[in-house]
């Protein structure tokens, strides 16, 4: 109970929001629109899983938004050239992985601070893409939409895939050795080394992993509509980092889990539709998001302070 205080408090906050919605705007809970909203967040969830790993490993990746855009556009272009989905999907994941590898190489290989490295790659990728596409949409062939399935079939598939990934990764972080390595490295890289783990390699792989997940998420996003906007994914990094942190993953590494990150994402993702349903003006949205982030960390800070005193 004490151990999962943070996760539970996020779940409680989420519960409160949902309860509020149930009381004042029950229309929120119509199955079809809700499924659509969840589907829209599915790619974000995939990236958030990767970000949780990166932050648990005591790094950060603010280039995911740009990676997402690059993967989306490239995948869209390949699709437009007639590549089938079975090829575009791995190609996008591979592209993401190689973008992640650049970050990983710089961070793990040269021991550069990840926040600065990924700041640089974020700007470089984003502007490179702008230069290359000038904001022009990419039109995708029809057979790509919903992975070639029916709409609801596609939606369930995407949501299912995102959930499956979350569950597999969430369990793997606890029940597979590699997951524990990530925690170990994030907690104390030197102790990890003494325990026979290679911190550099773990860091490198974690960046590749988030890259691959971002590539995957890009596909999950572009199949939801027939056009790819090069700007898509802008601001994704902040959304995802905020979600992960609100969900109790410590920015100093080693603490937190994917379930918390998931709850955090749901909470933040709820804000915007909740405002719409409660007929609150949109200009409150950012302030409320900021307040949620601050409340979450302040609650945690107050608690850990009390604990260290007691």
């Amino acid at each position, binding site marked *: 109970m004490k151990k999962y205080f943070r996760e539970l408090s996020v779940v409680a906050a989420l519960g409160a929001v949902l309860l509020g919605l149930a009381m004042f705007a029950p229309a929120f809970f119509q199955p079809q629109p809700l499924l659509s909203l969840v589907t829209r967040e599915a790619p974000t969830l995939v990236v958030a899983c990767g970000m949780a790993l990166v932050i648990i490993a005591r790094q*950060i990746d603010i280039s995911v938004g740009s990676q997402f855009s690059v993967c989306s556009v490239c995948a869209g272009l390949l699709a437009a050239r007639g590549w089938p989905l079975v090829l575009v999907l791995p190609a996008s994941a591979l592209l993401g992985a190689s973008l992640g590898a650049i970050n990983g190489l*710089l961070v793990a290989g*040269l*021991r*550069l*601070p990840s*926040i*600065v*490295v990924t*700041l*640089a*790659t*974020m*700007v*470089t990728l*984003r*502007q*490179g893409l*702008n*230069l290359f596409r*000038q904001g022009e949409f990419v039109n995708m062939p029809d057979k790509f939409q919903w992975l070639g399935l029916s709409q609801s079939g596609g939606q369930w598939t995407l949501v299912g895939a995102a959930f499956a990934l979350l569950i597999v990764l969430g369990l793997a972080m606890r029940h597979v050795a590699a997951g524990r390595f990530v925690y170990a490295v994030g907690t104390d890289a030197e102790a990890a080394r003494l325990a026979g783990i290679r911190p550099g390699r773990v860091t490198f792989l974690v960046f590749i992993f988030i890259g691959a997940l971002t590539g995957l998420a890009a596909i999950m996003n572009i199949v939801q509509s027939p056009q790819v906007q090069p700007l898509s994914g802008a601001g994704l990094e*902040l959304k995802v*980092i*905020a979600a992960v*942190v609100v969900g109790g993953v410590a*920015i*100093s590494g080693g603490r937190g889990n994917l379930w918390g990150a998931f709850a955090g994402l749901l909470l933040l993702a709820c804000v915007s539709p909740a405002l719409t349903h409660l007929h609150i*003006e*949109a*200009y*409150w*949205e*950012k*302030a*409320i*998001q*900021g*307040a949620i*982030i*601050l409340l979450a*960390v*302040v609650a*945690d*800070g*107050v608690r*850990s*302070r009390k604990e260290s005193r007691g």
Partner: protein
Amino acid sequence: MSTDKPAWKARLLSHEMLLLYVLIAEWLFFYFTGTTTNRRGVIVGFGTIDRQFDILRHSCEIGLLALALTPVILTAGIDLSVGSLLGLCAILFGKFWHDAGLSIPVAAVLAIGCGAIGGAINAALITTLRLPPLIVTLGTYSLFRGLAEAITHGAVTYTDFPESFLFLGQERWLGLPTQAWLFLLVAVAVWLLVHRTTFGRSFRTIGFSPGGARYAGLPVNRRLALVYVLAGIISALAAIIYTARLGQAKADAGTGYELFAITAVVLGGTSIFGGSGSVHGTLLGVAAIAVLKNGLACLPVVMRMNAAEEMSGLLTGALLLLALTGSVLPKILSTLRPRRQPA
């Protein structure tokens, strides 16, 4: 002393000097490729004095934010909220002047006070609750911008500022753009604070070793608070200059400026891990980015492609990576060498 000579050599190869060389090279490059004579026989482009003033004028706000961030990053902290705080203070300044009917100076002082309060919120959360600055300021980044939007409903734009105020942002005084004087003043003040007072010394100490600073009896929390409050004050100042330059105060003022400012600081050689770095390095970083951006806009090739914005972003990112790699290269080489010897 026997170490004098290598020290002298090391100084010529210090990060700041290298950056200065890059800056000079950049400037010369653009001077020769970005300057032309137009049909009327007037020299135009990068090489003109007006151009230099524009560069100065355009870098004042981001430069101020970079100055605000330098002490913060020296303490191994970060402040993502400066750009949002700029927006909020611009709005409040407009509101004080326009809606509350206060005079410009009073409104400005109040806006700066609000900046200080914004910084104090960051400081309070970071020092009393020991929360990581990255997260706290990520929250206030959203909160401050959100408040600016909520106050104005996103819609209200304060304009029609008096000429005497716009003078600050749009005219020249004693040969230089007016705001450049203010910028210079802040730069000198921050430089003195960081390099010539015990405050700066404490910032570094805290950045290198917070434990060491505490055990040495330095008032760690007070110094940290100072750094964030100062960042708030300087952001508010930047808000006023921004308003004067554009003649309008709107909730989106300064969007994305924090990233530019952080980039400039890091490019200027301040370690994101805290402790080492300098204010003049930051100024050089700001200049290097500004010259790059403006210079590219003067290159005929780039202009025809309509790619100044993208190119400058691209090259700034590349420059940053290059600077970072360069800064660790000697260390890496020196760790490789002993390994090779026994083989």
